[in-house]
């Protein structure tokens, strides 16, 4: 902390930590909220299809919809087990 900051008493204060944490949580939760309702079921069915070929656990398939101004992208992430 610099000499000047000490007198201004502005640095590393807990309020700015709180604000940063909030911005992250709130952005994340808003993203989740805007996901279409069918997503969990889609994820479940994808899991079943993939399991016909590879054994994977539930958390290895991630589905998300990314909305842009002009289009939406369905993002599918499948992690395969190490061989």
């Amino acid at each position: 902390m610099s000499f000047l900051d000490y007198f201004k008493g502005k640095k590393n204060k807990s309020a700015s930590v709180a604000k940063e944490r909030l911005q992250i949580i709130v952005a994340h939760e808003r993203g989740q909220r805007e996901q279409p309702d069918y997503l969990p079921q889609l994820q479940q069915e994808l899991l079943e299809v993939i399991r016909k070929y590879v054994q994977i656990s539930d958390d290895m398939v991630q589905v998300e919809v990314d909305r842009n101004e002009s289009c939406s992208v369905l993002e599918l992430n499948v992690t395969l087990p190490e061989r």
Partner: protein
Amino acid sequence: MARIIVVTSGKGGVGKTTTSASISTGLAKRGHKTVVIDFDVGLRNLDLIMNCERRVVYDFVNVIQGEASLNQALIRDKRVDTLYILPASQTREKEALTKDGVEKVINELSETFDYIVCDSPAGIEHGALMALYYADEAIVVTNPEVSSVRDSDRILGILQSKSRRAEMGQDQVKEHLLLTRYNPSRVEKGEMLSVADVEEILAIPLLGVIPESQIVLNASNQGLPVILEEDSDAGQAYEDAVARLLGEEREHRFMTSQKKGFFSRMFKGG
């Protein structure tokens, strides 16, 4: 047609009931016929803050279930004669509030009242959903603190997707931020989120800032809505909020600490 205003927050204990009591009293004092409904079934706090706990005979659930008429259940305030209270039941299950039942009561109240203020219970479950479902406007009570701001954002999400207005595709519920228990000197020391921080995160219009004040507890001890403590900072801050709710322009006050003068600092060592 009444205007329906829900006072909501998600997080518990942030000042919803305090706010419901003061906002409804403020609206009524300006001559608007106002009823305040306690949706906190099972707890029942509003009648204590409004000093009418000994006059409760029938309650909201009795009316929904047809065991009493609205006129039998409504309690007329002794201080402001355009103000009525519909108390919550202390004994029933929260599920006694049904969408149809609540709608019936609200429709009947709409015929004679100008404003219906709904004091929501904490949480984002059934009781809170019932309180906000029919709202035209929402006062989102928030404390300058991480979990309260996060919960307020959740409630905003619910207002935008699960209210009647959202389900029917009508205009959105009009949202207002009411920041309560604000402590300007802690904000100035960097220990508390500022009004600007919370406004930036929640991104809804600011209805008012109510300072943290001992008067609030004093008033509630006596069963007095704090807005009737007309000389107090918290009372005046609520008065301003009511004026803004009615569309008046009021400058925000009580947002900076009263700087201690040199002498008081000398003598109090602060």
